């Protein structure tokens, strides 16, 4: 029988992968071609999340505000003598917001494969699009926190004129770099945990504790320069240590980044993507069987 009208030959060959990875160039091309799916999925998931809420998207601003308030209470109650006014509050807020950006990438990404069961059983597409969509959604949820942070800074300065707040500085141009590194690190780690969650369904429960401990080990509730001696290693061996250190330098102190911090920001972003990408892509053919 002749082929149908409008038929466009599109030969696809499915073979066993001799190495554990599928051919990477076609995979990445397909990933790029279907990026609209990831962005729309992030849009729609956001929409679905706040659809039944009376306050709707106001929660995007309320959540980080309440979170900052809760942790500020915790920090000032635990260390009553350690309150350094707005310097502490602005560090706490921007540290928390940046940490939660990465944490949301990881926790939502970890569930993305097991939650996308029917889609995975029915369609062939690069599975990494699902955790990628979660990273986009986490970034979108992070964005409203920036005006919240700036508002608090201005209000704080007005209320406590003696508090030091950095004015405009060109060093703020490091912010996009910090955010890209945070997003890439979060996405890479999401790939690891999404894969683990397919094989071990209790990974997500464990992740709750991992992220909590991770936050305490990161310069969020404490200032990076409060570390002494060997403890300074925490800023570099923790995947989020360098970006949070950079966050404190740029956002809070208005300083530039030193070479070591820049190096480790890039190192962890690449290491997370490479390790997470390898772990995820080499196992994603298994997902339809394991789900």
């Amino acid at each position, binding site marked *: 029988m002749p082929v149908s009208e409008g*038929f466009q*030959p599109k030969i696809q060959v499915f073979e066993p992968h001799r190495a554990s990875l599928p051919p990477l160039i076609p995979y990445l091309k397909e990933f790029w071609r279907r990026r609209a799916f990831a962005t729309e999925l992030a849009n729609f998931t956001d929409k679905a999340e706040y659809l039944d809420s009376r306050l709707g998207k106001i929660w995007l601003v309320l959540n980080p505000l309440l979170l900052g308030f809760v942790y500020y209470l915790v920090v000032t109650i635990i260390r009553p003598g350690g309150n350094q006014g707005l310097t502490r509050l602005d560090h706490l807020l921007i540290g928390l917001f940046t940490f939660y950006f990465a944490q949301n990438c990881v926790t939502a990404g970890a569930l993305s494969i097991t939650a996308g069961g029917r889609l995975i059983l029915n369609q062939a597409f690069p599975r990494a699009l699902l955790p990628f969509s979660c990273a986009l959604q986490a970034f979108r949820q992070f964005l409203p926190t920036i005006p919240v942070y700036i508002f608090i800074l201005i209000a704080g300065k007005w209320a406590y004129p003696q508090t030091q707040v950095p004015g405009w500085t060109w060093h703020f141009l490091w912010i996009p770099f910090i955010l890209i590194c945070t997003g890439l690190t979060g996405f890479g780690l999401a790939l690891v945990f999404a894969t683990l969650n397919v094989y071990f369904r209790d990974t997500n429960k464990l992740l709750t504790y991992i992220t909590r401990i991770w936050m305490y080990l990161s310069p969020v509730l404490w200032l990076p320069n409060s570390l002494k001696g060997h403890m300074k290693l925490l800023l570099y061996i923790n995947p989020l240590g360098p970006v949070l250190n950079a966050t404190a330098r740029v956002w809070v102190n208005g300083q530039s980044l030193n070479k070591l911090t820049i190096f480790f920001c890039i190192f962890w972003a690449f290491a997370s993507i490479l390790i997470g990408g390898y772990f995820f892509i080499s196992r994603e053919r298994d997902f339809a069987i394991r789900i």
Partner: protein
Amino acid sequence: MPEELAIRIEDLSISYKVSLEAKRTLKNAVMRASLKQKERTRTIEALKNFTLDVPHGSVLGIVGSNGAGKSTLMRCIAGILSPTEGRVIVNGKISTLLALGVGFNPALSGRDNIILGGLASGLTREEIESKTDEIAEFAALPDGFIDLPVRTYSSGMYGRLSFAVAVSMTPDILLLDEALSAGDAAFKEKSFERMRQLCAEARTILIVSHALATVTDLCDTAIWMHKGNLLAQGKPEQIVDDYLKFLNVGSLPSSFEDM
């Protein structure tokens, strides 16, 4: 691959390991590792040395008992599962309906879900939006339901919408796994009509169905799968007849005993 073929399957085998643990958890994995025990697994050979050619424009029915490997075969043709050995060559754009409610987030409207499902299958947003009303009409959703959350749909509406999305993608190759069980008699007739139209346009359709009348009514050829093997291939009436005898007798016809 010869031009007249839509699908060529060469010596395809798919096997995978399944865990015999009641629950696969990190905790159990750590416990096993500390006791230096190995995980108890079983290898499932879902498809064994399977070879098949499907020409453009054919409607192939696939019958077989549960565990015959029908869904595995469909998923391998769609590129969802990878072969363990052998290879599958596909020529044309594929649309699949292998699990009902594809990409459907129950909190979102039918329209939003159509867009998500279409984007996942590789269409552009413009292409999908131009088809949304047509899909809603084909799915016979009551007025205004297309903009209501999918969780308010009845199971029939849900199934009809899934089917409508799959057939609206103007695929060259359409893979359907038990999709025709969705909807009432009137919708079934409409689905058949749509599939006949796709066949007339020389599109290739593969249907897995336990409803044998669907296979004899719609298909021009059929295969019978049994425990991962291709047992027989031929006219749908003959294949269905042999399969029914097998179901009634409970043993394979003598000519298949070696399988």
